[in-house]
């Protein structure tokens, strides 16, 4: 496959999505738009967590911690750039460039955190890793609360953040995370991750650099969690440390498992169903979360493999064609 074709293929989803996003942003009323924004942010969260929990089979419970790092880094960057305008661009374009830059800073900061947490995964497996990631999330929260208010706002958090997150930003973020995950799943990288998930010892025996791939999976996943954090920060206009506690991490894990471990489509659908579902239940007041809890249990009992198992939407489409590129066809990983 030539470079140009590959580039075109990864750009295509963005080009297809843009007019839709623009139209939604333009004509959708504010409240549904906001719900859609949250759906998109949850998609970014769930799909990125799927890279670690689903693809690689590592059990991370600290996704909210990465989100927190991303949110604070993005917010601090935006506050620092509050009065900056790029002279060579009109104001709106300059704002967009700066916000994009701030989001990238958030992603970078979160990926550094991912590297720090990924390194212990050299030694730890399963539930021990889960505890370390959970502990990491709690450490972040605790440290932010204990730092002097002038820097990160302590328990009050940061507020007065410019409300720059639009449906278009969120939509592009969601498309980006899906494209990333899909390309990853079809690449050598992805194959290595699946091998680690299925049998780490065997993978290592086959010459897969398990450590390196695991750490890379953590870094990629963390970067997108950071993106989700940056987007939520500038959607709400305020952030505070307890927004990113371990319950938030659990919510992300729930979306991944409910959708089907390793299925990108599953994560997207689960994130959408849970976010919209909770909105529809809003009228039930305090019974809402009880209903949500029951829904979780019942759904899991009814479909233990998750909504999609490890299947993907595009597999349906792919199967109809003759195996043009045999190397990349077939569901990732297959049944355990």
């Amino acid at each position, binding site marked *: 496959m030539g*470079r140009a074709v*590959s*580039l075109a293929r*990864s*750009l295509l989803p*963005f080009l297809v999505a*843009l007019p839709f996003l*623009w139209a939604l*942003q*333009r004509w959708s*009323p*504010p*409240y549904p738009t*906001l*719900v859609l924004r*949250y759906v998109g942010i949850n998609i970014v969260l769930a799909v990125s967590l799927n890279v670690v929990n689903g693809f690689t089979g590592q059990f991370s419970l600290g996704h909210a911690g990465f989100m927190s790092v991303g949110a604070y880094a993005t917010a601090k960057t935006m506050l620092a750039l509050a009065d900056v305008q790029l002279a060579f*661009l*009109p104001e*709106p*374009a300059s*704002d*967009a*460039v700066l916000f*994009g830059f701030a989001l990238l800073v958030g992603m970078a900061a979160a990926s550094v955190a991912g590297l720090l947490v990924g390194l212990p995964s050299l030694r730890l497996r399963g539930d021990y890793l889960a505890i370390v990631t959970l502990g990491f999330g709690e450490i972040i929260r605790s440290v932010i*609360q*204990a730092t002097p*208010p002038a820097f990160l706002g*302590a*328990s*009050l*958090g940061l*507020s*007065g953040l410019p*409300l720059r997150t*639009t449906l*278009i*930003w969120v939509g*592009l973020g969601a498309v*980006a995370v899906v494209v990333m995950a899909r390309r990853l799943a079809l690449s050598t990288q992805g194959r290595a991750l699946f091998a680690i998930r299925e049998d780490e010892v065997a993978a290592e025996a086959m010459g897969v650099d398990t450590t390196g791939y695991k750490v890379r999976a953590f870094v990629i996943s963390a970067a997108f969690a950071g993106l989700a954090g940056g987007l*939520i920060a500038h*959607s*709400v*206009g*305020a*952030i*505070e*440390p*307890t*927004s990113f506690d371990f319950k938030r991490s659990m919510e992300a894990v729930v979306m991944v498992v409910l959708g089907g471990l390793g299925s990108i489509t599953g994560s997207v659908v689960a994130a959408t169903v849970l976010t919209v579902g909770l*909105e529809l239940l*809003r009228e039930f*007041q*305090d019974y*809402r*979360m009880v209903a949500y809890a029951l829904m979780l249990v019942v759904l899991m009992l009814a479909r233990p493999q998750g909504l999609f198992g490890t299947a993907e939407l595009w597999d349906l489409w792919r199967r109809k064609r003759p195996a043009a590129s045999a190397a990349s066809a077939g569901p990732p990983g297959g049944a355990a």
Partner: protein
Amino acid sequence: MHRVRGLAPLALLLALAACEKRKAAEDTVASAAASGPAAGAQILIGHVASLTGNEATFGDSTDKGIRLAVDEQNARGGIKGRQLAVKTYDDQGKQEEASLVTTRLVVDDKVSVLLGEVASKRSLAMAPIADQYQVPMVTPSSTNPKVTKDGDKVRPYVFRVCYLDPFQGAAMARFARDTLKLKRVAVLRDVGNDYSVGLADFFLSKFKELGGEIVDDQSYKAGDSDFKAQLTAIKRKKPEAIFVPGYYTEVALIARQTRELGLTVPLMGGDGWESSKLFEIARGALEGSYFSNHYSPDDSGPRIVEFVKKFQARYGGVPDSMAALGYDAARVAMEAMARARDLSGPAIRDAIAATKGFAGVTGVITLDAEHNAVKPLVVLKIEGNAGKYVATVQPD
């Protein structure tokens, strides 16, 4: 190749950004026109509260106070001949949920006034929405100075009926230093709670300024149930009092454990203490302690007596300070609606801003130019499991 792919979406965004901005401006204008409800229909009051989650007990209290106030108003014939209704949405104690339900209340439910939130951090998430859609918002108990401010400017649509942290913290510091003549005080704050941190910081700086010494500054976290590590450390520093500006949910246990460690000095706190639960759980451990509050229970002012009586009759429990502040927030908003020339956002806003000498149960409320309530504070001493009036501190 990797790098090129990353830049592509960025370039596209530039093209779109221009459209986004214009759209936001249009939203604002459209909603302002629509925010006055149709004549004859019920007037909706929106309330954003934590009905579930860590702070559910506060959201629950506030909601009870608000509903009591609104039902009373309805019994008196409503406002401008129309009945009122309260719509409460749960934010689970999360900022982004607060932001979401505020938008829903304003845009879909078309409420005339927003009430909430208890916590400053969530009010900070609501405030920009109130401003954007020009719906006045009255927060019952968000004490952080930042809530009514947008940078250096005052947020045009955001008001509060509670004290500010600087006023209450400094008032207690002055009381400790000047009235009680204390020299050495320790602080024990809830590090996860901005109200507690704010009060502690302002108390600390004022107390030092007045020549006192802060011998220790310890932290806990809401949800903890054992505070002996911190209290044992404080005990060694031999303070003359401990300032514990938390909520009653933890203060009662802190008080017990202070006494269990043989530490007999008085505790001091703010209006977050006010609850019958405090005494029920502390069981005498708070005797001789001081806290600041909006009113004293032995205040025989008819408003307060009547409020407590009505609240008890309806809910079967003594109101805490959250309930009282919720009640007042709703009444300030409704009184302003009655005075307003019509029920559009800007008209109600102007009426709320003009609130002067409003006789609430939490004091006589006047809103200043910064949209903060200016009202005196009373210091109570706990004797026989009840607060006894000691002093009144006037705002400066």
